[in-house]
């Protein structure tokens, strides 16, 4: 049984690398990149649930009997869209933050917020 778990462990490793990048890096763009990696690895997990040995893509054709399951594919198509939407919004915020603060490093941003007082410049 454990022989077939290697795929899942590999996917989990990728997920954890992505999550690590999100949390540990202070640069906002790097965080978004890490978020991307995290999300794509989760997509791999879903797709792996649908795969059938010796199956083919779920496009019905004469003569093929075994298909991989279409439902995970549909779910992940939606999830990819959600991912790119989040990335686009995050990047728009990054552009605005850079214009307002002059930096994209989280620690520096907090410092500048603290330095400019509670109200801060607009």
């Amino acid at each position: 049984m454990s022989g077939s778990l290697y795929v899942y462990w590999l996917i989990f490793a990728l997920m954890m690398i992505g999550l690590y990048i999100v949390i540990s890096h202070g640069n906002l763009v790097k965080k978004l990149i890490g978020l991307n990696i995290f999300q794509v690895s989760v997509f791999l997990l879903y797709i792996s649930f649908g795969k059938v040995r010796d199956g083919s893509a779920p496009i019905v054709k004469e003569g093929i009997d075994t298909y991989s399951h279409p439902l995970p594919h549909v779910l992940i198509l939606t999830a990819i869209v959600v991912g790119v939407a989040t990335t686009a919004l995050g990047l728009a915020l990054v552009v605005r933050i850079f214009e307002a603060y002059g930096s994209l490093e989280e620690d520096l941003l907090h410092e500048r917020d603290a330095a400019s007082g509670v109200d801060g410049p607009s």
Partner: protein
Amino acid sequence: MTAELPALQVVIPLLCAPLCLLFRSRTAAWLMFLLAALASLGCAVLMAGQVAGGDMLRYEMGGWEPPVGIEYVIAGFNVPLLLLVSTIAVVVAVYGRRSLESEISSSRIPLLYACLCLNLTGLLGIVSTGDVFNAFVFLEIASLSSYALIAMGKGRRALLAAFQYLVIGTVGAVFILIGVGLTYAVTGSLNMADLAARLPDAYGNRALTAGAVFVFVGFAVKMAVFPLHGWLPDAYAEAPSAVSTFLAATGTKVAIYAFMRFAFTVFGAALVFERLPLDRIGLSLASLAMLVGAAAACFQTDLKYLLAWSSVAHVGYIVAGYSLATVDGVQASYLHLINHAVIKGSLFAAAGILMLRLGSVRLEALSGLGRTMPWTFGAIAVAGLGLVGVPLTAGFVSKWALATALIDEGQGLVLAAMLVSSLLAVVYTGRIIEIGWFREPSGSTAAAGTTPVSMGVATWALVLASLYFGVDPRLPASLADAAASALLGPGGG
């Protein structure tokens, strides 16, 4: 037409969003949002009537029977929340017109109303759906629109607050996705009722347990339960006033509902509260939230930050209620969810009036408010008493219900935390009242102009509602009762 209400509930606000974009004028966009809010309130009221006797409405999207297709389920457990969200939307629509015009540049207002319509759609969708993946999709609709709405706040801190909320919110959403994926791998189903039927056979499955944990951690982020509450103070405080009012009254509440729905009617209380120690964890985290939130509120120098930290504490009360996993606990939890939404909404709305008239919501700017702006100060004072839980306010009713539920289960420590937290609430509410009543108005921030009627009416409508529910709690109590029995009773899916 009445059979189509579950779909219309979500479709009408959804339709209004692109229309806001097409019409381009500020008034037309505002009308679209008002229309969306009124229509969803109408649908919610009609459906509340239909499920009043314990019935359940099931709607098959696309005509496909679940679990092949997606279904919407309206029953006692989500109708109160539909009513709450749509009522708050109507109030914010009335309130927001003048408030947003004063805080947002006019060219962006139509887009902002589109985002509000989208946020409303997302929230209503999460509440109505009977499919776990559909819940994830609508959760992301609500979340993405709220990131954009928060970023529109005055000042650059709103941008950073929105970004940090985006990062942690997306991590939470991906956790929910992982949890749903693990549950899917174990059962092959995405329909809540189907899962509820299949899961009890799989209770010992470790992947299922892990899936449940991931789902709950994900929702915990959205609910801002301690220790995942870090995003909330900045997000609520820096957002535009109308947005803070809307989000504070609906955002976390819908996430809490989703948590309860998943815990009780999908995974089942037997898995969540007996096999997993979620009752003990929930109660501990809730106690910490109550204490940390109230304590932090005492140290704030800005009214909106104070209110936001107070929300962290109140989420703790709600979590404590349902972590008991008893009908009384869930009922108290639901009741406080409704009451707190009304009270917090009124407070943020009052803060918005202050922002309009004074240009600032720092506590020092509130000196002598009792004399310069008596109506607004009155609203803050009365609502603040509701936060403390003074008798005759809605806050008292739900805190009492919570206290009795805790006593019944012998949770003395949690009760103590609740009392300490309420005492701290006296401190921070007292501070506001002291500054407003007993100090001289400072010349530097003089009240400019007059409060717009729409904003004043909207704020006082919520304050009066909180007083009414304090004196005559039959409406929210019966809704909460029905919700609790629907959640914990048989056939909850």
